[in-house]
């Protein structure tokens, strides 16, 4: 397949792996931010090229996994109200709230539609004028512009039955949060190529210099991933800490101007709670005043709803170490519940639910039934 096969060419990737091996003089710890990168690493078994000298730490870049439990509980509550159609992306369906997930609520009669793009939700709003359509808007800066566009179009068309529950989150704020935490072991960072496609990479420059850490903008194919690591290691071995674009076929320094404008037009930056991590300042996107008519939180007065009354909490299970995994402090297989009590069928924590979650990726791409794993700890 064009634009994919070239980056999966085994000869080229092996040459790159040799070059990487030749420049390695010591061990390094590198975080790949995006869940898509984690997934691709394990899917292609690229850990075999890291010579046991590079430890990969899997970052919090799975938007489904980091959506706060309280937010999910509120969306579950909303979905169960009459005359509501809830629209969401597919991998949100099985993420557990404090008691239920969206599949369970759908099976109980809620009208929940899996959409592929926010404009699909707007089309559902046009087709169902007697219902209120809520788009559960999740994702990083990658999906935020598409949500923004649907709101702008809704405003222009004076559509009154379309609402957004924004749980959009921003990568750089989370990255700073992790780098500020005393326990972190990061020496290099692979920035998420898709997020940088939208936002560019200027905002990473002060982070690289403040924390003295190389940041390489990296794509998702085997060549891209190994090249991102190769360049990161080059910087580490040479005492450098720069922001480098290694996904230049897609990413420009200033990002995608039109997409950034959509974000600026529609959202304001707010502190956001991340599942497993807690509140991170300046890490969320909420609708600006100008678009507040579309804000599901305001329209349905969500602040006043105590979801715990509607959805009694089960006893929490303290085995799950999702928080430490989402921050890269521990690896999925270090969790006592991994692949035992906790499986994709029966997730104890969100990283086991989404296909982008680190635990699910480790589970899916383990090498044998004995749970010998790729990506050594």
């Amino acid at each position, binding site marked *: 397949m064009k634009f994919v096969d070239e980056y999966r060419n085994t000869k080229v990737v092996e040459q790159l792996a040799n070059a990487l091996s030749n420049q390695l003089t010591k061990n390094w710890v590198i975080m790949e931010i995006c869940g898509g990168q984690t997934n691709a690493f394990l899917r292609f078994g690229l850990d075999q090229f890291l010579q046991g000298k590079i430890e990969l730490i899997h970052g919090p870049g799975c938007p489904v996994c980091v959506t706060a439990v309280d937010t999910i509980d509120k969306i579950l509550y909303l979905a169960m109200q009459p005359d509501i159609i809830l629209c969401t992306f597919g991998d*949100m369906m099985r993420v557990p709230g404090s008691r239920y997930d969206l599949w369970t609520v759908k*099976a109980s009669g809620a009208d929940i539609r899996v959409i592929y793009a926010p404009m699909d939700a707007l089309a559902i709003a046009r087709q169902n004028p007697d219902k209120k359509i809520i788009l559960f808007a999740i994702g990083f800066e990658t999906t935020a512009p598409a949500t923004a566009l649907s709101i702008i179009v809704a405003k222009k068309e004076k559509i009154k039955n379309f609402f957004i529950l924004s749980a959009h989150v921003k990568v750089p704020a989370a990255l700073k949060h992790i780098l500020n935490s005393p326990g972190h072991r990061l020496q290099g960072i692979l920035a998420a190529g898709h997020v940088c496609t939208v936002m560019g990479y200027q905002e990473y420059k002060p982070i690289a210099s403040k924390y003295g850490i190389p940041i390489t903008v990296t794509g998702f194919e085997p060549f891209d991933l190994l090249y991102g690591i190769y360049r990161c290691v080059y910087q580490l071995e040479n005492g450098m800490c720069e922001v480098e674009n290694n996904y230049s076929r897609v990413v420009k320094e200033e990002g995608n101007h039109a997409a950034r404008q959509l974000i600026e037009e529609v959202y304001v930056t707010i502190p956001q709670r991340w599942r*497993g991590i807690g509140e991170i300042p300046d890490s969320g996107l909420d609708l600006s005043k100008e678009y507040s008519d579309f804000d599901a939180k305001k329209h349905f007065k969500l602040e006043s709803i105590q979801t715990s009354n509607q959805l009694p909490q089960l006893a929490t299970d303290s085995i799950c170490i999702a928080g430490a995994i989402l921050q890269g402090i521990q690896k999925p297989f270090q969790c006592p519940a991994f692949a035992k009590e906790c499986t994709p069928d029966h997730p104890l924590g969100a990283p086991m639910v989404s296909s982008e979650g680190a635990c699910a990726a480790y589970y899916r791409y383990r090498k044998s039934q004995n749970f010998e794993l790729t990506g050594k700890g």
Partner: protein
Amino acid sequence: MASSEFTWSCSVPNATKVIQMGHGGGGRLTHQLIDRIFQPVFSNPLLNAQHDGAILPFGNIELAFSTDSYVVQPLFFPGGDIGSLSIHGTVNDLAMCGAKPLYLSASFILEEGFALDQLQKITESMQRTALATGINIVTGDTKVVDRGHGDGLYITTSGIGQIVSKFPISPMSIQPGDAILLSGDIGRHGVTILAARGQLSFETDLISDCADLSRPVLALLQAGIEVHCLRDLTRGGLATAAIELSQKSHLHFLLDEKSIEVGEDVQSCCELLGLNPLYIANEGRFICFVKAEECEKAISILQSHPVSARTHRIGTVREHHPNGLVTAKGIFNSEKVLDMLSGEQLPRIC
């Protein structure tokens, strides 16, 4: 922030007490339904074999008996419709038992308000497919449900065929060393249906692979090839079929991902949507376990039939494994476990 500072943990979602969509996905939830509800209640030796159909002794011959329901949306899609699908599906299930399909029944659940001309078209499509396949629809039933209680129409077909295989075709017959053959490219039916639902914001020229598989299978059997097992790759796709058979045979199957053909159009859709073609439904593809020595002969027989013209070997049966195991060797030669999905595959967010 150190891990000890976290108080967050996530409660266990409650065990599902009602049917969810995932129960129909062919994955682990479907198996739970069978293993926990149907199998214990209906238990008998013929059912417990859990093959694509039951093998019934009848005088000095054996009959294969199979049934399947069809609820596909949309009713008409590129490459077929619910009518042709309902014939091919059951005919293929019989073929996978090593049987020559003979007779089918057809039951219709019709929704009040469903257009008669649509029904006419679907019925004619069924008859055309039946004739082409060489079987007859010999009995049937019709029920009507209130508007809003059905999706236009649902069809159930059941079929009887005569076993023509000299060797028992069953998961239990699979042996270490067997070659695993795949009859063509995978994922076309599933992606065609996704596109035909109009949910994708791009168009494809994809056509479902929906086809009669009985001819190539009968040709293999008539040539006396030692076929140990056959399985069509319907819901849950190649991976789910292989995992099911490995679990029943208690063997390790090693697949070579590089040799599994995925059309460029299917691959593109899957890359865009974050779907894995190994788990996508097919309606005209099967895997075949044959004695390794007869592998080349089997491939050339299958390749002489248009529906299996691109058959090739995709793997080997390895040693005994207590729970069954399927691993796939990827493009960089790393081997990973293929796991049964819980329910349906979900498109990824980014």
